[in-house]
């Protein structure tokens, strides 16, 4: 994926400022980050420290106030909204804390959504959806609606939707934040397997040190910058 050993994700001097009226919030103040392909990174930090903000910038949902973000060789910090849309569809899988499935669609239709933006045929889409649902262990629930699933199952559908296009990078914002311990552990097992067995590169925001322990590296965000890993490991 990355040429001549360069990191898959390169962040340099990243700044993000929010202005609310006269108020100015400097959330990110010079973040640097290198992430190799195949890593499973945990992002920790106090509430309001800017973890979600950073994840949004890495996933091209928002644009930085300053600094550069390079993913898989693409400079995404200067892309237009339309280009970012297409770039996200190809390279990023998002997993949300509250799953964010469409309640009116069945599990398989939810998983199919990102594939609608690809030139795949109907039968190819079906095959991809079946594979993704099998990977998250939900083959038997493809016709279920979100309200007919448990929280843990909904999150698995969310993960299936995130991986169905085989994205470059999987971004998870507190994927277990709304789950009980057992379901949360199952989700973490799944993410770990995706990383170890399928080589997925994952960035996961979490408040839970136990969850972070499943990853291959942990970084802490505080006062606008990333502190190197490991002081609480």
């Amino acid at each position, binding site marked *: 994926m990355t040429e001549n050993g360069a990191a898959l994700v390169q962040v340099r001097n990243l700044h993000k400022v929010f202005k609310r009226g006269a108020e100015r919030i400097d959330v990110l103040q010079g973040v640097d980050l290198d992430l190799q392909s195949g890593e499973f990174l945990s992002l920790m930090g106090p509430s309001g420290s800017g973890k979600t903000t950073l994840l949004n910038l890495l996933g091209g949902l928002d644009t930085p106030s300053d600094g550069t973000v390079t993913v898989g060789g693409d400079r995404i910090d200067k892309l237009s*909204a339309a280009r970012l849309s297409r770039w996200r569809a190809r390279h990023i899988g*998002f997993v*949300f804390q509250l799953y*964010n499935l469409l309640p009116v669609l069945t599990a398989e*239709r939810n998983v199919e959504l*990102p594939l609608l*933006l690809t030139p795949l045929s109907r039968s190819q889409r079906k095959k991809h959806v079946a594979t993704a649902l099998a990977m998250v262990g939900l083959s038997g629930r493809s016709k279920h609606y979100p309200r007919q699933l448990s929280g843990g199952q909904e999150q698995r559908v969310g993960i299936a939707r995130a991986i169905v296009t085989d994205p470059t990078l999987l971004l998870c914002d507190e994927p277990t934040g709304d789950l009980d311990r057992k379901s949360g552990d199952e989700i973490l097992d799944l993410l770990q397997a995706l990383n170890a067995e399928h080589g997925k590169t994952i960035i996961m925001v979490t408040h839970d040190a136990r969850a972070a322990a499943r990853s291959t590296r942990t970084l802490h965000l505080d006062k606008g910058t990333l502190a190197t890993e490991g002081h609480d490991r």
Partner: protein
Amino acid sequence: MKFFPLIWTSLFRRKVRTLFTILSIVVAFVLFNYLSAVRVAFSMGVDVAGSDRLTLIHKVSFIQLLPASYKERILAVEGVDAVTHATWFGGVYQDPRNFFPQFAVDPEGYLDLYPEFLLSSEAKDRWLGNRTGAVVGRSLADRFGWEVGDRIPLQGTIWRTRSGDTWEFTIDGIYEGAEQGTDTTQFLFHNAYLDEANALGRGMVGWYLIRVSHPDQAVAISTAIDERFANSPFETKTSTEQAFVQAFASQIGDIGAMMTAILTAVLFTILLVSANTMGQSVRERTSELAVLKTLGFTNPRVLSLVLVESLLVAVVGGGIGLGLSWLLISQGDPTGGLLPAFFVPPRDLVIAVGLIFFLGIASGILPGIQAVRLQIVDALRRS
């Protein structure tokens, strides 16, 4: 097409609301078509009146009679191709409420000027050979269940026979209309019968119908004819049939303008209703739309999803509405045959279809823009 399930299921998220919106669109378009048909009935003849036909009446009024001798003098005018005459009879069939127009005519001349009245040659021969014979239009015959051979008595109100006021006619034929808008409510009989049998006098007719060789010279010919009879005891006023019918129709009041006003109000209300539905539907889905955008749905795509959804509501509602109104209208006119015609002209159907699409786009455009403006990051934060 692969996005269709996404749109379809969004519609069924609030079944009752969608249903009511569709229902109000249905009602609006039933109303639209029905009123179109009524408007046509009242302005009847204006659209179908021959452009090569002129009507000549007494300058003072349509009810004043003219000498029958004018025929030859009119024919002598340059550009006049054929002339015939008609006289308003105004008789009553059984009950004054059974109104229909009755004209005393010169059969051959009249049929020649109205080629849109289709009469079989046997019926025509029968009529020509029968002094008290009459020919009636299809919808008039259907209205009273008349058949060829029936004897029809009419009470004269203007014209009386020397022996009384009942005139007897025999139906010799039923004419069909060549076009949907052709007037098939007329009752036509020999002017000769009226002329000989009436107690008032002879040699007078109601008005003249003139065919010109070149419709584009109609105005000049009209002027030439009227000049010819200027300063005579019977001065004339000649106009195209279209103008004549129009003037007659506008005596009833400008029904067309009234209907247009009603329809505009109705359609505007419906536009607000469906725009409101779409607006609500988009607002409720803020976080879902944000998710779609996160997955890489571009702004044009999101906009088209919303527009197709609102179009679908309009097309389903409007389609059912047009279908229903077609059923209703094909049942016939609500007065049971009093209106000379009752149908929706193709032009109005095209307008209706255009309005359906306009409604779909117009009600979806603002919510669609709202969906486009949606900032993913903010929307996800709020959810």
